[in-house]
């Protein structure tokens, strides 16, 4: 042999270079992945983070008073926070510039101050009413608006961009050379409307309804009148005529207790509420006749009793009544439909929120926003808070010097807080932030207006502007978990069983065909699966629901019976028949299907009062049937497994000396006894459950919807099975063959080898397979989008739809306005989804590591 030149074995330059390059590429790639993932989560969080902040105060101004007292609810600023106006006791509107308090305009009311008996300003719009001593009513409005000029008006002085000057009775603002805006408040007073009742008007309210505006008035004589205005054109003269149609009642309480302090139309004007200072509230029906419906007290609850109502207001939409008391609390009432029918029309007042204050000083004034469920609360100690009522979130807090007659207001875009006292009007410009969002509102029950109790609801868009968006993420999280739960319940057993079968029992030749074809299933686009579930599967499920449910029990049952028969055959037959196993499996399956079809009507009649869907709805049948039907398979299975463990060895021991036929017979008798016992135990369990007052309907079962968790579970199961299958099968295959040889050599069956040796050894791989499948199920979008119905209800009902975080993002992101609350909440939903998958993966990894540690060294 020739001596080999050592130099030849020196690592060449190119190998070294390739080594270096590849190690760098791998490091950079890995780091880049981590950074990308982090960036995504940081970005999601960055978009969602502003949701959590409260409001901020951006400026503060003091406007010199022109009048000493202003009418409640009448202090308003305009959309650009340039002008401020208020209604005086004399019925005049005063308009001032916010920045320096300059008086810009004061309207001339068409009546003398002595004629006025009461003034009313709408808390939610720019309308006001003046009630006169002779029983007439003057409606008026003070509307803030601006007109646009594209050239400088001829009588205006030279201006620079952004400059605002007083001009005529408003302000002229130059945006740029071609855009001038003239901001002003236009005040109009309508002609007085004479009422049939000529008595002095004490209280007024007004509502715009579909058929014109409706007014309510309390007259001096104690009568309560509803005036509908009827406007028409006189055909002869062309003159517009306004007529009043009245509904009049004489509530007894007004006779006995005097005038109510507050009077409000509720909702669309179908009810009217009269509130006295001592907290009594009476609700009257207004349609056709004025009729008393209910009385309640507004300042007492189980915990606190205040002495007097000191301030009152309505929230946007006139659904919620805010009542402030002398101890600093504000209670929020709304009408709730009562089941027990304690009132004539089925509705009654219920306290939904109670807003406590740190100080116990009296609430002087309450105002509400025109665009959100925000209210301002002013207390005698000068604290002025703006609160979002539904979420009870404090938005801003300011303090001012106040007196009893102080009146507060909120800017039209929630962008200003106004407080009028004798000296003048205090103006804070604010940024309300995302006032209706807080952590608890997102994840915990929130008591929305008119809901019977606090609930977690997702309803991002609503039919009317007055309805608030309900942005509770919990129903979506529950929907996500529900989809995951049901699809994993379906997919994990099947995928693992298939993986074990292919790796442990299948011959390599068949495996070479089966494994790639199952893996091919993973490449099915989920939109196809979703379509399949929604369009093809759903109608079948709807039509053959009971048959399909029976199938899930009947097929395993026939398999078990088949297995028992197979076991009981004499040994040499078994070994001869072994090669035709698959054929027998197919036969068992077919028999199972036939049994299921035959069984379905019987089960329906016997357990579910003849109609399963109606039973699910809760209209027919009894809870017992459902419990029994569900418990039977569970009990039979448990009892059978127990008897296999404890009784079978004895049976075999007893029969061992006798013929095999005898053993087989005894095994069958045993199985039969187990089934009877299982049925009885199931009945007992069902009885117990019913005695405890539990009903499966309402938890696991419930009304049937055609797109439901069952279908999603099945279809998404199909999406998840290939993933779990592939990874689990690979994990099982990596178990060294010498372990199998050792086990088989010791006389274990293949099944024992699989269960006792292979599966425990491959546990870490199997677990990560399940977790990868879980991750896929949590994030899956298309299938749930198409097959889940997307109703964001929150239950575990197998037969109802749901909406997942991912589907919700897909559905709503296109219509969300950028940077709106909705948009940010959707980003938060994405972040929550990210966190959920992150948690799943982290838990998976740590558990996997633990399993792996056990199987180390192999």
């Amino acid at each position, binding site marked *: 042999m020739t001596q080999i030149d050592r130099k030849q074995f020196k690592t060449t330059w190119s190998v070294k270079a390739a080594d270096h390059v590849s190690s760098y590429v791998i490091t950079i790639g890995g780091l880049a992945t981590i950074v990308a993932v982090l960036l995504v989560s940081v970005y999601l969080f960055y978009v969602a983070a502003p949701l959590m902040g409260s409001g901020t105060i951006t400026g503060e101004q003091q406007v010199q008073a022109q009048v000493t007292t202003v009418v409640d609810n009448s202090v308003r600023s305009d959309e650009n926070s340039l002008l401020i106006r208020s209604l005086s006791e004399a019925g005049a509107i005063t308009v001032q510039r916010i920045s320096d308090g300059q008086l810009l305009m004061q309207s001339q009311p068409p009546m003398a101050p002595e004629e006025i008996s009461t003034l009313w300003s709408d808390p939610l719009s720019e309308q006001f009413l003046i009630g006169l001593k002779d029983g007439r009513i003057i409606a008026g409005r003070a509307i803030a608006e601006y007109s646009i000029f594209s050239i400088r008006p001829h009588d205006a002085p030279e201006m620079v961009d952004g400059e605002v000057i007083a001009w005529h009775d408003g302000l002229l603002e130059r945006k740029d050379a071609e855009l001038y805006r003239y901001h002003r408040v236009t005040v109009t007073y309508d002609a007085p409307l004479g009422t049939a009742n000529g008595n002095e008007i004490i209280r007024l309210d007004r509502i715009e309804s579909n058929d014109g505006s409706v007014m309510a008035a309390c007259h001096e004589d104690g009568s309560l009148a509803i005036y509908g205005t009827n406007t028409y054109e006189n055909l002869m003269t062309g003159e517009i005529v306004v007529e009043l149609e009245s509904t009049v009642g004489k509530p007894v309480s007004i006779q006995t207790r005097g005038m109510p302090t507050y009077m409000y139309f509720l909702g669309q004007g179908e009810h009217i509420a009269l509130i006295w200072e001592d907290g009594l509230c009476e609700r009257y029906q207004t349609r056709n006749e004025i009729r008393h419906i209910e009385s309640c007290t507004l300042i007492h609850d189980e915990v606190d009793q205040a002495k007097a109502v000191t301030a009152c207001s309505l929230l946007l939409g006139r659904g919620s009544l805010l009542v402030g008391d002398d101890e600093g609390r504000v209670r929020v009432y709304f009408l709730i439909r009562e089941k027990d029918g304690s009132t004539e029309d089925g509705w009654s007042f219920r306290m939904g929120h109670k807003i406590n204050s740190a100080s116990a000083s009296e609430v002087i004034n309450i105002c509400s926003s025109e665009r959100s469920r925000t209210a301002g609360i002013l207390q005698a100690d000068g604290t002025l808070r703006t609160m979002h009522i539904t979420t009870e979130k404090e938005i801003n807090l300011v303090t001012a010097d106040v007196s009893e007659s102080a009146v507060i207001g909120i800017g039209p875009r929630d962008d200003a807080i106004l407080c009028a006292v004798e000296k003048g009007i205090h103006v804070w410009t604010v940024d309300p932030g995302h006032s209706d969002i807080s952590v608890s509102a997102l994840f915990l029950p929130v008591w929305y207006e008119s809901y019977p109790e606090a609930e977690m609801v997702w309803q991002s868009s609503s039919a009317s502007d007055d309805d608030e968006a309900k942005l509770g993420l919990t129903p979506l999280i529950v929907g996500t978990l529900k989809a995951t739960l049901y699809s994993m319940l379906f997919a994990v057993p099947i995928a693992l069983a298939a993986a074990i079968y292919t790796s442990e029992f299948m011959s390599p030749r068949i495996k070479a065909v089966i494994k790639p074809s199952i893996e091919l299933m993973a490449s099915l686009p989920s939109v196809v699966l979703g379509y399949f579930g929604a369009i093809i599967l759903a109608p079948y499920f709807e039509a053959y629901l009971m048959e399909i449910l029976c199938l899930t029990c009947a097929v395993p049952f026939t398999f078990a019976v088949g297995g028992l028969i197979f076991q009981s055959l004499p040994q040499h037959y078994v070994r001869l028949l072994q090669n035709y196993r698959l054929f027998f499996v197919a036969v068992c399956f077919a028999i199972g299907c036939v049994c299921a079809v035959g069984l379905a009507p019987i089960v329906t009649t016997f357990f579910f009062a003849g109609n399963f869907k109606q039973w699910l709805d809760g209209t027919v049948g009894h809870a017992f049937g459902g419990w029994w039907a569900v418990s039977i398979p569970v009990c039979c299975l448990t009892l059978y497994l127990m008897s296999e463990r404890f009784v079978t060895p004895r049976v075999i021991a007893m029969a061992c000396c006798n013929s095999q036929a005898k053993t087989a017979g005894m095994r069958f008798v045993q199985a039969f006894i187990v089934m009877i016992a299982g049925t009885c135990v199931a009945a007992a369990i069902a009885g117990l459950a019913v005695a405890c007052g539990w009903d499966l309907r309402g938890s696991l079962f419930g009304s049937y919807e055609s797109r439901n968790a069952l279908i999603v579970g099945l279809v998404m199961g199909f999406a998840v099975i290939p993933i779990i299958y592939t990874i689990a099968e690979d994990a099982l295959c990596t178990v060294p063959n010498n372990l199998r040889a*050792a086990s088989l050599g010791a006389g274990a069956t293949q099944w024992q080898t699989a269960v006792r040796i292979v599966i425990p050894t491959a546990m870490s791989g199997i677990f990560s397979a399940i977790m990868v499948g879980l991750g896929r199920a949590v994030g899956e979008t298309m299938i749930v989008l198409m097959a889940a119905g997307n109703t964001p209800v929150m239950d575990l009902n197998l037969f109802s739809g749901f909406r997942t975080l991912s589907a919700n993002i897909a559905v709503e992101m296109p219509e969300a306005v950028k940077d709106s609350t909705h948009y940010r909440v959707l980003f938060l939903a994405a972040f929550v989804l990210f966190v959920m998958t992150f948690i799943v993966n982290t838990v998976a990894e740590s558990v996997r590591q633990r399993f792996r540690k056990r199987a180390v060294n192999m």
Partner: protein
Amino acid sequence: MITDSAVNRLAAIAAGEMCTPAVHEECHFDAPIVDIEKFNLYYGAKRALFDISMSIPKGQITALVGPSGCGKSTLLRSVNRLNDLIDIVRIEGGMKLNGENIYDPAVDVIELRKRMGMVFQKSNPFPMSIFENVVYPLRIVGIRDKTVLEETCERSLRGAALWDEVKDRLHENALGMSGGQQQRLCIARAIAADPEVLLMDEPCSALDPIATGKIEELMAELKGQYTILIVTHNMQQAARSSDYTAFMYLGQLIEYGPTATIFTNPQLQETQEYVTGRFG
């Protein structure tokens, strides 16, 4: 130096010719525990065993020697039908255990394997505790009685000369033991269910001389109680510990006789060459 006749015979076998094995007089047993008759085995189209006929005496140690790839392991695995699991394997001829045909289709393979213990070339303890490893053969037949399990465990571990080393850590993971201990654990597991035959495939190939010595002592102790069929590459070991030795080459049995004769005065030249280490 290899003599001409030897070279010729081996060359003939390599060329695919059949040669008649030289089976000594002493190796025709009346009541062999395993009786191999004209046994052939194919891996697909490849023939791995050629007409092997030999009988294994009860209660003795029989060694299988031969160059790598000659089919020793295959033959050993045929005895407890572990080869069944390989899809492509096909067999001809027969094999009897106590006069009962092993390859009869009506034979319960699982029961058959329970009557034999097997120790593999590479130690293969299960990833569980030492105790569970040893009692595995009992667990799979459904024995749950704790005292029985504990007694068996102690007896087997003592039998495998491992008891003193591990008696304090029976419930620790078996994978934490040394290679030699692991192999002895596998032996303990193989003898736990009281097998009739112990099949050992190069049990000492990965062990140091001390561990090897222990296992050889162990075999000497087990002898009589169990029949041992051992494959080894270590001629000294075969010479020291076995009663009978069979020499195989390329799937054929060349010579089979009492160990002393095989190592000192074999009938065939090539056996002589092989056992003295001059080829192989």
